[in-house]
């Protein structure tokens, strides 16, 4: 059953007076529980597609539905609420808030839920244990390695239990060993917790860890 349904998706950017066509009439279904890698050269529109899936950007034409919800038709306010509960986002540069501890960073998405402070703390700690950082809860990002920071970011992405995880070059800034740990973790989230994952990557080795690899080039998506 498709969790994500993309239909006739077209994205055009306006740069000064010029129109830049990123992709046109794209169709894509991503099944629940799928781990999909999205590859392609720089500027091919991989990240743009990810941003559209996250509701951070709006399509020029076409529709994006996630879990039956037409996110392309939502208002900004509805999108904020939807993102808070339905999607987790992992960035290339981790993007942890440097002044918050690992646990506080992971707890952030839970601030958008009605959970009590104690429940929030418990869940954040549990998420950090899942990513193997149960002993680093009070560490600040600067006290962690790149790999550890990305694992904290993964804990933050899953802590509110979203069905869909979007990862934008999650290993792009990591050494091979850390990258491997992060990919293993993503595989576990997919296989053990049933998370649907869409991962944008340049790295063919990383892409191989997914169930399926798709290529986006010159606006055309191929398996």
């Amino acid at each position: 059953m498709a969790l994500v349904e993309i239909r006739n998706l077209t994205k055009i950017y306006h740069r000064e007076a010029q129109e830049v066509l990123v992709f046109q009439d794209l169709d894509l279904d991503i099944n629940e529980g799928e781990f999909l890698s999205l590859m392609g050269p720089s500027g091919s529109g991989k990240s743009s597609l990810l941003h559209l899936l996250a509701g951070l950007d709006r399509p020029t034409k076409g529709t994006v539905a996630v879990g039956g919800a037409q996110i392309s038709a939502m208002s900004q306010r509805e999108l904020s609420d939807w993102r808070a509960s339905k999607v987790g986002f992992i960035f290339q540069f981790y993007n942890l808030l440097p002044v918050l501890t690992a646990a506080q960073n992971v707890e952030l998405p839970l601030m958008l839920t009605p959970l009590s402070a104690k429940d929030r703390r418990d869940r954040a700690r549990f998420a950090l244990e899942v990513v193997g950082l149960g002993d680093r809860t009070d560490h600040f990002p600067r006290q962690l390695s790149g790999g550890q920071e990305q694992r904290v970011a993964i804990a933050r992405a899953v802590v509110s239990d979203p069905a869909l995880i979007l990862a934008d070059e999650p290993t792009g800034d990591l050494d091979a060993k850390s990258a491997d740990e992060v990919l293993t973790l993503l595989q576990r989230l997919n296989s053990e917790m049933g998370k649907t994952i869409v991962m944008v990557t340049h790295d063919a080795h990383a892409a191989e860890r997914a169930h399926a690899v798709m290529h986006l080039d010159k606006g055309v998506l191929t398996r």
Partner: protein
Amino acid sequence: MAAIPLVYNLRSLKQRPLSTAATAIGLGLVVAVFIAMMALAEGFQAALTTTGAPDNALILRKGADGEMSSGISREIASSIAASPFIARDAQGQPLVSNEVYVVLSLPRLGVGMANVVARGVSPQAFEVRKGIKIVEGRRPQSGSPEILVGRAIVSRFAHCRVGDKLSFAKREWTVVGHFSADGSSFESEIWGENEQFAPAFDREGGFQSVTFRLANPEAFPAVQKALQDDPRYQVDAYREADFYKRQSAMLATVLRFVAIFITAVMAIGAVFGAINTMYAAVATRGPEIAVLLTLGFKPGSVLLSFMLESLLIALIGGLIGCALALPINGIVTSTTNWSSFSEIAFAFRVTPALLTAGMLFALGMGLIGGFFPARRAARANVIETIRQG
């Protein structure tokens, strides 16, 4: 709307201690100047509003706008003293003080001359005015060229210590005591006996004012009407407290206006400082803002968070301002009382209300200084920021 945790703002401020401190100090200095100048106006007004009692009546010549320009003949003064409106002491004497009011130019301690009010009073004046206390020495003896000096000017003018002799009106006057008057403007005056001052100042024909204790303070409107309507008198009657309060109003208003004007100009600078600091904070924390918005925090939460951060800086600034201004409380200064052109000494009054106003002023500056940067943060282009890493 979910709030971004406050700890995020607190720690972000700690991350950039120099710019936080510089902005807070800038705001603090403005607040300190504001409080100090308002304390000046407050102190001046307090000195004059504590002058006079509500159960005393002050009688001036009709149309006179102050004691200096007033004149009441001895006959009228005697007639008023015999009226039934006046309270009497245990011996049955009317509690009335016929007063000579003259402005003298006396040498200051240090350099220059300044004007001082010399008030010739009846012996009953010390009963009519309840707050008068001899703090050193004694009262002048009737029939002697003796004077009392208000304690606020003792240290500001030469030859004012007890036992000193002061020369004015072509005579020598012995200082026999110092008096306090509950911090009122009487403390900036020299008092002697009216019958000594009148010939010395060539005022034998009458007095400048008559002050008496009302037999029934509530009946003042009736007393006022009776005296003002009597064609023999040609006088205006005031509640003594109201009269001095009205005298202080204009200068206090001017002082307050100057305080607000100067601090408003300074505040513009401080607000720009706050705006700069907050814009810098927003600029360097673009990725953090993008993350917050991506996680699902609404632009309104981001706006609120950065406004709060600006308010936290303002709060620190306000506290610095209050701490800087507080020590001036009680410091005695002087100005010219516009209604008598004489020097009036008074203490800066840093009141809780002024400190509160100072804090609110600081928070107001923080609010204005934080709004535009916070709005920029709330309107951040998430995708552009994420792309830039």
